[in-house]
C-alpha cells in the first residue's frame, strides 16, 4: 500500500532538531541548577541541617538533681532526702484528663487547689513528661492507687526525693526549710539561673537551705528523648545524669543545741553560741520554733494560719533578727572605752543608788546602791551609778566607737539572710532619725546599755567573742565546709587594747560568775572550769514601738514580734540577758542568751548558758 504523503519535510526536521537540542541544553542546565542546590543544602549547609533535624527529633527532658545534705558538727545528718511516693500523670497517655481526675478524686482526697496547681504544671510541661499531682502519698492513698492503677491510663506512681529533717524542731531556724517555688521565685530563678530549675519544684526559703541554695541544688540533668512530630516519645537516646548538690557541714553541735533548747523550755528567747577560735556557730536557737517537716510538702492553708495567729511568731528568727537592749552586758565595752584614756581601774564612785542629772534622777537597780565601787566591783555587781559617771566623763562618742569595734550596730555578715543590724545611737543618729539633739540623759542610758541602743543576740555573741579573744573576732559562720571545700574563717576585726585592760576586764568578768556578789554567782554551783560572763536586764521596747526604728537597717521579715498569748503584765517585764565565755583562761566558746520577759539575767538567762558550757566542755573542747 502506498502511503499518502507523510508530513516530514527535511526543513522541519532540521528546525526540530535545533529546537530539541536547545531544549535539551536547557534541561541540562536546570539539572545542574538542581544538583548545585542539593549540594548546597547537603554539603555546604550539612551541619546546620543536621542541627535542625536533631532539634526536631530530640526532646530534652530535665532530670531533677539530688539536693545536697546538711550535716552537724559531729557528722549527724540534719537535713536529708527521703524517697516519697508521688502520684504523677503523663498527659499524652491520658485520653480524657477531666475523667481521670474525677476518677482519682473518688480514690484519694484531692483538693481543688492541688488540681489547679497540677493543671498549671501540665500547661508548662511536654505531653510526654511525668507531671506530679501529689508528692508524699501516705500509705493508705498509695495502696488505693496502686490497686487501681491498671484502670488508670497515664497515671503513674513513682518515688520522688523529699526533704526530711530528722531532728524536727531542733534546727528549724538555723537550717531552715524548703518550700514550693512560688511564681516570683520562679521568675528570679529563670532570670538568674536560666533552665537550672526546670525539674525542681522546691527551693530553700530560710536558713542555710536558702543561703546555700546554689551549692546544694546540684546540676540539672537531661534525658535526650527521641520524639516524633507530635511529641510522642520513641525512646531514650542519651542520658546526662543530674549532679547531686554539695553537702553542707555545719558548725552546729547537736548536743549543745539540744541542751540549749531544753534549758529554754517553753519560754520565748534566743541563744547564740560561737566558737571563738573560728567564728563557727555552735548553737543557734530561737524559741519558740517549729517543725520544718511540715513545710516541705506544703502547709495546708489552715496550718499556716494557725502558726501566724499564734502570736508567738515561731517563724521569726530571734537569734539574728530579734532586737533587744543589751542592758548591762554593754558595760564591759563601756568600761574598756573609759579605760582607754579617761580613767584607770582604780577610779572609785560612791553609789547611793541613784544619779542626779539636772532635775532628773537616774536610778541604780539596787535600792540603796552598792556603796564605794571601783571598776572591778562595778562590773561584778553591775553598778549602774558607776557607769553613769563614766558616761558623763566620756560623752557618748567613745562608747559608740568602742561598741562598734566589738561589732555592735553593724551587720555581722553571718552566712544567712535576715539579720538585723540593731541600733547604735549617737548625736548624728538622733538628729537624723529623731529630729532632736543628743542629751546627756541619753548618754546615761547608753552607758548602761538601755535607751535607743538595740542589738541582736548574734551581735551579743560576736561582742562576747571579741571579749573572750582579747579583741579578735571572726565572722560568724554556720557552715564549716561546702562539699570538699572548707570555708576558711575570716577575721572580722582585731581590736588592739593593752594587756592591762584585758587583764582587768577579764578578771571582772570572771568575778561576775565566781564572786559571791557577782550578779551571776548562782550559776557557779559545781563549776569545774573557768567561766566568765555578764548579766543584763533589758528594758523592753515599749509596746507601741514594735516597728523598726528609723536609721535601722532591717531585712524583710525580721520585724520584732508582739507576743499575743501572754498577759500584758508578763509582757511588761524586762528581758533577761546573759553573755559569757569559757574556759576563762583559754576560751573556746562564747554564748549570748536572751529570755524574753525573763527579768533576771543571772538567774534566768545564766543557767541556760551554764548548761551549754557544761555540755561543750564535756566534749573536750
Amino acid at each position: 500500500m502506498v502511503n499518502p504523503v507523510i508530513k516530514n519535510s527535511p526543513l522541519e526536521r532540521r528546525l526540530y532538531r535545533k529546537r530539541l537540542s536547545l531544549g535539551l541544553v536547557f534541561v541540562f542546565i536546570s539539572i545542574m541548577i538542581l544538583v548545585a542546590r542539593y549540594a548546597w543544602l547537603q554539603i555546604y549547609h550539612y551541619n546546620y541541617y543536621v542541627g535542625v533535624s536533631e532539634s526536631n527529633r530530640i526532646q530534652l527532658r530535665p532530670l531533677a538533681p539530688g539536693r545536697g545534705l546538711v550535716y552537724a558538727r559531729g557528722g549527724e545528718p540534719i537535713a536529708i532526702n527521703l524517697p516519697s511516693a508521688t502520684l504523677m500523670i503523663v498527659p499524652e497517655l491520658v485520653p480524657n484528663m477531666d475523667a481521670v481526675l474525677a476518677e482519682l478524686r473518688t480514690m484519694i482526697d484531692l483538693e481543688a487547689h492541688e488540681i489547679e496547681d497540677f493543671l498549671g504544671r501540665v500547661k508548662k510541661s511536654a505531653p510526654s513528661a511525668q507531671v506530679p499531682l501529689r508528692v508524699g502519698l501516705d500509705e493508705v492513698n498509695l495502696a488505693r492507687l496502686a490497686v487501681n492503677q491498671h484502670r488508670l491510663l497515664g497515671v503513674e506512681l513513682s518515688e520522688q526525693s523529699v526533704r526530711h529533717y530528722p531532728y524536727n524542731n531542733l534546727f528549724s531556724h538555723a537550717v531552715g526549710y524548703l518550700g514550693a517555688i512560688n511564681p516570683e521565685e520562679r521568675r528570679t530563678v529563670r532570670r538568674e539561673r536560666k533552665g537550672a530549675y526546670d525539674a525542681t519544684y522546691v527551693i530553700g526559703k530560710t536558713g542555710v537551705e536558702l543561703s546555700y541554695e546554689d551549692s546544694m541544688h546540684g546540676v540539672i540533668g537531661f534525658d535526650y528523648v527521641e520524639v516524633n512530630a507530635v511529641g510522642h516519645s520513641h525512646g531514650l537516646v542519651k542520658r546526662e545524669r543530674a549532679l547531686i548538690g554539695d553537702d553542707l557541714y555545719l558548725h552546729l553541735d547537736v548536743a549543745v543545741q539540744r541542751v540549749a533548747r531544753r534549758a529554754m523550755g517553753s519560754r520565748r528567747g534566743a541563744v547564740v553560741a560561737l566558737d571563738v577560735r573560728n567564728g563557727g556557730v555552735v548553737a543557734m536557737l530561737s524559741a519558740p520554733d517549729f517543725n520544718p517537716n511540715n513545710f516541705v510538702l506544703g502547709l495546708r492553708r489552715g496550718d499556716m494560719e494557725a502558726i501566724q495567729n499564734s502570736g508567738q511568731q515561731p517563724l521569726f528568727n530571734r537569734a539574728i533578727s530579734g532586737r533587744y537592749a543589751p542592758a548591762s552586758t554593754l558595760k564591759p565595752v563601756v568600761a574598756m572605752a573609759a579605760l582607754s584614756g579617761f580613767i584607770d581601774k582604780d577610779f572609785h564612785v560612791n553609789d547611793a543608788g541613784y544619779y542626779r542629772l539636772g532635775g532628773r534622777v537616774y536610778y541604780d537597780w539596787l535600792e540603796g546602791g552598792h556603796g564605794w565601787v571601783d571598776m572591778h566591783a562595778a562590773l561584778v555587781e553591775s553598778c549602774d551609778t558607776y557607769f553613769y559617771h563614766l558616761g558623763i566623763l566620756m560623752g557618748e562618742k567613745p562608747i559608740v566607737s568602742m561598741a562598734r569595734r566589738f561589732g555592735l550596730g553593724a551587720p555581722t555578715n553571718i552566712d544567712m539572710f535576715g539579720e538585723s543590724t540593731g541600733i547604735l545611737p549617737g548625736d548624728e543618729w538622733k538628729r537624723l532619725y529623731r529630729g532632736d539633739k543628743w542629751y546627756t540623759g541619753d548618754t546615761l542610758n547608753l552607758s548602761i546599755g538601755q535607751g535607743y541602743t538595740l542589738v541582736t543576740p548574734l551581735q551579743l555573741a560576736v561582742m562576747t567573742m571579741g571579749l573572750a579573744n582579747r579583741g579578735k573576732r571572726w565572722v560568724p559562720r554556720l557552715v564549716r565546709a561546702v562539699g570538699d571545700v572548707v570555708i576558711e574563717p575570716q577575721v572580722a576585726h582585731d581590736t588592739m587594747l593593752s594587756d592591762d585592760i584585758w587583764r582587768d576586764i577579764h578578771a571582772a568578768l570572771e568575778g561576775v560568775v565566781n564572786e559571791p556578789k557577782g550578779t551571776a554567782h548562782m550559776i557557779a554551783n559545781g563549776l569545774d572550769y573557768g567561766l566568765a560572763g555578764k548579766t543584763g536586764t533589758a528594758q523592753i521596747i515599749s509596746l507601741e514601738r514594735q516597728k523598726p526604728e528609723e536609721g535601722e537597717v532591717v531585712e524583710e521579715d525580721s520585724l520584732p514580734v508582739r507576743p499575743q498569748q501572754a498577759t500584758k503584765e508578763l509582757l511588761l517585764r524586762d528581758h533577761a540577758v546573759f553573755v559569757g565565755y569559757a574556759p576563762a583562761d583559754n576560751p573556746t566558746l562564747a554564748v549570748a542568751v536572751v529570755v524574753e520577759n525573763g527579768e533576771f539575767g543571772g538567774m534566768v538567762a545564766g543557767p541556760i548558758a551554764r548548761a551549754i558550757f557544761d555540755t561543750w566542755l564535756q566534749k573536750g573542747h
Partner: protein
Amino acid sequence: MINISALWLRYRIDGPLMGMLLLLCLFGLVVLYSASGQSMETVVRQSVFMLVGWTVMMLMCGVDARTISRATLLVYVLGLLVLSGVEVMGTTAKGAQRWLDLPYLPRFQPSEVMKWVVPLTVASYLSKHTLPPKITHVVMVLLILGVPMALIVLQPDLGTALLLAVAGLSVLFLAGWRWKQMISFGAMVVVALPLVWKFGLHDYQRSRVLVMLSPDADPFGAGWNIAQSKAAIGSGGLFGKGWLDGTQSQLQFLPEGDTDFIVAVLAEEGGLLGVLLLLAMYVVILLRCAHLSLNAPDSFGRLFSGALTLMFAIFIFVNVGMVAGLLPAVGVPMPLLSRGGSSLVSSLAAFGLLMSVCSQKGRIAL
C-alpha cells in the same frame, strides 16, 4: 520458536526505555516503602497501580498515531467539560477543589489529566500546519492553553495552571516559535506580572511565593513544609542516613513524605548520591525519549513526543526544585515515584503514547 526480536518489531515497544522505566519504578517502590512509614500495604497498592499503568502503557503502544491525534482532541474537549463540572460540583480535598466524585468511577483529579492533555493538544494542533507556526497559529495555541488554565486557576490550583502554561509554551518553542515573537510575548508577561500579583492571587498563594523567597519568615506556618524538607535534605549529607533511617521522615516531621516530598525522603536517606542516582536515571530516560523523538516518522510524532519529553523534564525539575526550596511550594508529585494512582498511570500511559508516535511500525499517514 518465538522470535523475540520479531515481537519487538511488531510492537512499538522501545526496549531501553522500558528497561529504564522498570528500573525507576522498582527504585520508586523501595523509596516509597520508607517514605510511607514502612507500610507494606502502601507499597502493594502502588505496585498494583504500576501493573495497571504498565498495562495501559502497552495498550497505548498499540494505538496508532492517527487515533492518538484524534483522541487528544476529544479528551481535551471532554476535559474542558469536566473541569467546568468540577467547578460546579467538585469535592474539596486539602483545601482545593480538585477531585471529582462521580458514582461508580474512582475519584480522580481532572487537572491531573489535563496537565498532560493540554500540551499534547497544542502539539497535535501545531503539527497539522507547516512549521514554524504563523502568528495566527500562535494565538490559537494561546487560546488552547488559556481556557483550561483559567478553569484550573479557579479551583484554585495555580501551580498546575502554571505548569500547564510552561509545558504548552515549550511545545510552541519546539515547534519553532519565532524568537522575536517569543520575546515580545515575554515582555508582555513581565508587564502583566505585577498586576496579576496584586489582583489575581489569593493570600495563601502570595504567602507561598513569599515563603519561597524567604523561607525563614514563617517557619511554623506557611514555611513549615519547606523548612522540614530542607532539613531532611540537608541532614542527609553526602551519603544519607541510610534506608529507613531518616529521622525527618520516620518521625513524621516531614509532611507529605510519601507524595510530593518523596524526593526529600530520598535525599535524607540516600544523601546527595541518592539524589544524583535518581537524576541520572531520569536523565537517561529523557535522553532516550529525545533520541526516539528525533527519529520519529513525522511532524506529529516529533512534536508530540518532544512535548512529552519536555513535560517530564519540567515536572521533575519543579518537584525536585520545590522540595529543596528553589521554587514555590506547589502540589506537583514526582513522576513515577510519588504515591498515587492517577499520577502513576498517566505518566506510564504518556510513555506508551510516546513510544507509539515515535515508532515507524505500521504508521498510517495523518
